[in-house]
């Protein structure tokens, strides 16, 4: 054959960025999650006259910020094929550091928040560095961090709930139309996470690492720094979650966030992010958070007992993953 590739000039990026183009598969995913969410609202609305009210939606909106921002971080962690089990403990530890800085060291609110964020980031950097540079599964390292950070939280607070007082609650106090600054901040972080994953070189590298890390290495990309950064981001967002929780309680509880890693992972998985890495969406994870929150508050409103709530939540998690599996199979068949 006479294939004559004339020349291969290096491309010049056009100055004006094009609109993001989510694939058809991503659009069907959002549609599916939205339909599930609407269906749940309709169902709980039919079962309880109090559910479809502005008040109950405000309650949900003011409950989810911590879960929402941590789900953003966890989406990144799962996309690179990792997992972070320490997020609940890191939340407690960061909150504890914040309360100690404000109450015992008298450093003021801003410095307390700053120290909390640094604490979370250092925890994440530790997990990421150990697991990436020594090639230990992040499951194991973060399990260790789960214990260490919980111990840190107890040590910092002397195993007591540390009361801070009213000035932190302005973060979570209802603000415009009953919505708190925390909720708005969480929304902003979700949008930023979505852009980071879909529009940046960093995000593309993460998807590549989760898909085939060795191929990325052979393409001349150093895969370690982005992976460590992802764990640092996870730690930072856990600390942001701590900020929201401490503000809501006006206190740091060393037992805060016990088992929260599982809710976060459940939300992300309901959103269709793969535990095998390479496939996921921050926006879909946010839908997962909403589904879990609506489910919990809906079940509470219709008077379901705690055991019943847990059984139903479990069923919903499995159902969501099964449905997502069929959806993505159908999508790959139709193309």
């Amino acid at each position, binding site marked *: *054959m*006479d*294939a*004559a*590739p*004339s*020349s*291969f000039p*290096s*491309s*010049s*990026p*056009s*100055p*004006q*960025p*094009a*609109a*993001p*183009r989510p*694939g058809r598969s991503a659009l069907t995913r959002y549609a599916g999650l939205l339909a599930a969410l609407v269906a749940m609202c309709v169902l709980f609305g039919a079962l309880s006259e109090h559910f479809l009210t502005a008040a109950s939606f405000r309650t949900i909106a003011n409950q989810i910020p911590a879960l929402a921002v941590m789900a953003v971080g966890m989406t990144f962690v799962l996309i690179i094929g990792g997992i972070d089990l320490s997020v609940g403990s890191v939340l407690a530890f960061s909150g504890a550091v914040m309360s100690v800085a404000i109450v015992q060291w008298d450093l003021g609110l801003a410095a307390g928040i700053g120290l909390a964020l640094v604490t979370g980031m250092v925890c994440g950097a530790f997990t990421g560095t150990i697991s990436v540079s020594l090639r230990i599964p992040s499951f194991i390292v973060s399990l260790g961090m789960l214990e260490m950070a919980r111990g840190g939280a107890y040590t910092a607070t002397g195993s007591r709930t540390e009361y801070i007082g009213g000035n932190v609650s302005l973060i979570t106090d209802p603000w415009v139309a009953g919505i708190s600054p925390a909720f708005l901040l969480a929304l902003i972080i979700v949008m930023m996470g979505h852009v980071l994953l879909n*529009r*940046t*070189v*960093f995000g*593309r*590298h993460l*998807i*590549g690492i989760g*898909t*085939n890390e*060795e*191929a*990325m*290495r*052979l*393409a*001349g*990309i*150093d895969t370690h720094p982005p992976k460590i950064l992802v764990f640092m981001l996870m730690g930072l967002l856990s600390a942001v979650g701590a900020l929201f929780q401490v503000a809501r309680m006006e206190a740091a509880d060393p037992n805060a966030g016990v088992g929260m890693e599982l809710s976060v992972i459940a939300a992300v998985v309901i959103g269709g992010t793969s535990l095998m890495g*390479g*496939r996921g969406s921050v926006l879909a994870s946010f839908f997962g958070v909403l589904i879990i929150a609506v489910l919990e508050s809906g079940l509470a409103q219709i008077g379901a007992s705690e055991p019943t709530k847990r059984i139903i939540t479990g069923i919903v998690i499995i159902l969501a993953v099964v449905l997502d599996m069929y959806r993505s199979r159908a999508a790959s068949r139709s*193309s």
Partner: protein
Amino acid sequence: MTEPQTSMPLLRLEGLGKTYSGPVLADVSLDLHAGEVLALAGENGAGKSTLSRIVGGLTSASAGSMLIEGRPYRPASRRAAERQGVRMVLQELSLIPPLSIAENLFLDTLPSRYGLLDRGGLHRRAQPLMARVGLADMDPETPVGDLGIGQQQMVEIARGLTGDCRLLILDEPSAMLTDRETALLFDQIEQLRALGVAIVYISHRLDEVKRLADRIAILRDGRLAGVQSAAAMQVEDIVRSMVGRDVGAAFDPGGRTIGDALLDVRGMSRGRAVHDVSFTLHRGEILGFAGLVGSGRPELMRLLFGADRPARGDMVLEGRPYRPRSPREAVAAGVAMITEDRKGLGLLLPLAISANVTLASLRTVANGGFIDHRAEADAARRLIGDLRIRCRDGDQPVAELSGGNQQKVVLARWLLRDCPVLLLDEPTRGIDIGARYEIYALLAELSRQGKSMIVISSDLRELMLLCDRICVMSAGRLAGAFKRGAWDQDSILAAAFSGHLQSSSQEQA
């Protein structure tokens, strides 16, 4: 023996067809006689595997019928086919690694005494079978997972010989075997033929096919393109019949001008694999590396690409010292590696063509860390056109492309990055013959544009077709270098064996 007998055929296929979403096999009629070796040849997707799976009972036909010794034959499962004496050795290994050789051989008929596994009986039954495939020295207790791939393949073949076997189907049996094991396999096939077993042999290695088979049936696009006596066909005839046209006639390796030295390699050594290798790659040159398995070629490439570090030796690239400590540094210096394991190490299979093409040059389609999707799509579209990648568009996942087009995507990645040196390890492995020539033409065109390439290939004809110069490695050393026109197959092979003959104790390939 090569002439079809007048007696009743062992197996007769009449108008056999199979349709999934489209037809993959249509109107195949064929006779197979006892004691005959019939080779099935054809490109990937020509229907070889589908045909053999229908005969072996793994798939049912959607049209046509089969007769064994005149009686209707319609196996509902592999077990049903085996009861009629039709056995199949699959391309993919279906062994259970932690179980022993003997247990794997008789997995479905494990002997038991008082409900316990009868090891003695099992081993007595396993040993003669193992001897037939050259595993007589092995302990039947050895877990299959401890064997090499070639030995595992022999176990798989031995399993095909358990019980009554009148028709044996071998799907790419030699793909992972060493030459010694292949010879053993051929001996075994000869013995079976003498016993009156009919054999269907599927292979990409056409010289092997020609040597072994009585007749060759060629499939093209799911149809029978011809059945001929193997003695009457040359390899070129088989290829023409497989592809449906003359390939290679339009391929012109010439018209290249070789420039000055680009990469100078001096005294590279690492362990026993690479010893004191020196050569120079020139601008616009395609330099081939020939050698046997274990001659150290992949290990040398790893040194050139920074995946390993040399114990001794220096490299100079474009006049500057070149000491890559990682693939990242190699790429930054302009050296790209195109790996033989395209799917496992080369591509991000579920991702779009565009993402794969821009992977190594994302910065050029990004502003301040933000990917410009339009620039990315433009770059992908341009390279899809230049390299004639057959696809829907740049958004199509590379997993859906054929092998040849996947390889073009990998090439496109390094053209976008504009690397002057390309290291290609088995660039046409698993690629159809027709598409292979497209890759050759593309590489030749790139060299005309001044790219320099180092090509490793186990196919000597490929190197002789493509390269300006062939270096031969043997037991880690450079055993010779031949310029185009000054080489012939015999002298290259002699050089390839030279090092291994001198130090035969050093390494077992």
